[in-house]
């Protein structure tokens, strides 16, 4: 079974600064996908960024980027120029195919990191 570990239950950062959230995972799979989801207070969970394990290049989405280290099984999220609206719970998630046909997929989530951006 896969496990996802987020070692930082809470973090805080000043507005406009950079912060990195850590995530490690354990799997014997070679092909899989990794995600960071964001859950703002009292709002819906949304996808922030995704990374395919077969890609060596780190994914980026505007101010969000990842540092994907496949051998180390590490997948950290960097938020640059932090904004007040980045305050949220962030979840790291892992996905592999459930069967050889790849017709359905299951997400395994970490326990989350609560990020607070201070003015």
């Amino acid at each position: 079974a896969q496990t996802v570990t987020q070692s930082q239950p809470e973090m805080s950062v000043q507005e406009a600064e950079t912060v990195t959230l850590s995530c490690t995972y354990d799997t014997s799979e070679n092909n899989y996908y990794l995600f960071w989801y964001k859950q703002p207070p009292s709002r819906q969970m949304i996808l922030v960024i995704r990374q395919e394990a077969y890609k060596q290049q780190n994914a980026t989405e505007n101010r969000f980027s990842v540092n994907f280290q496949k051998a180390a099984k590490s997948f950290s999220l960097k938020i640059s120029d932090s904004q007040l609206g980045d305050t949220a719970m962030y979840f790291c998630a892992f996905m592999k195919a459930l069967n050889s046909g790849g017709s359905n997929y299951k997400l395994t989530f970490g326990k989350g990191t609560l990020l607070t951006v201070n003015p």
Partner: protein
Amino acid sequence: DVKVTQSSRYLVKRTGEKVFLECVQDMDHENMFWYRQDPGLGLRLIYFSYDVKMKEKGDIPEGYSVSREKKERFSLILESASTNQTSMYLCASSLKYVGQGGKLFYEQYFGPGTRLTVT
């Protein structure tokens, strides 16, 4: 935009009651999921469905059942609610996406959640 809706934002039920949580998505997604979210535990998968009338157990199916009679609707049923089922319940759906090399992966879209209290 993909829309996933849940029948209630807040629900209070008594121990032993039968409880129905409804989820509807409007984008013809094949996959639908039910998670529960608890502080310090992250999201845990209860059940998922990859087609009408098809279902598979997730990590914590005990005490729950599901129903998917129509593609757009996925119901979570608590046959006899207990206090340890007090939690936030999140529904999600996903769209098939063909990636590089024929690999398939799914981005999950979440509903707003139902906070269930069992007294």
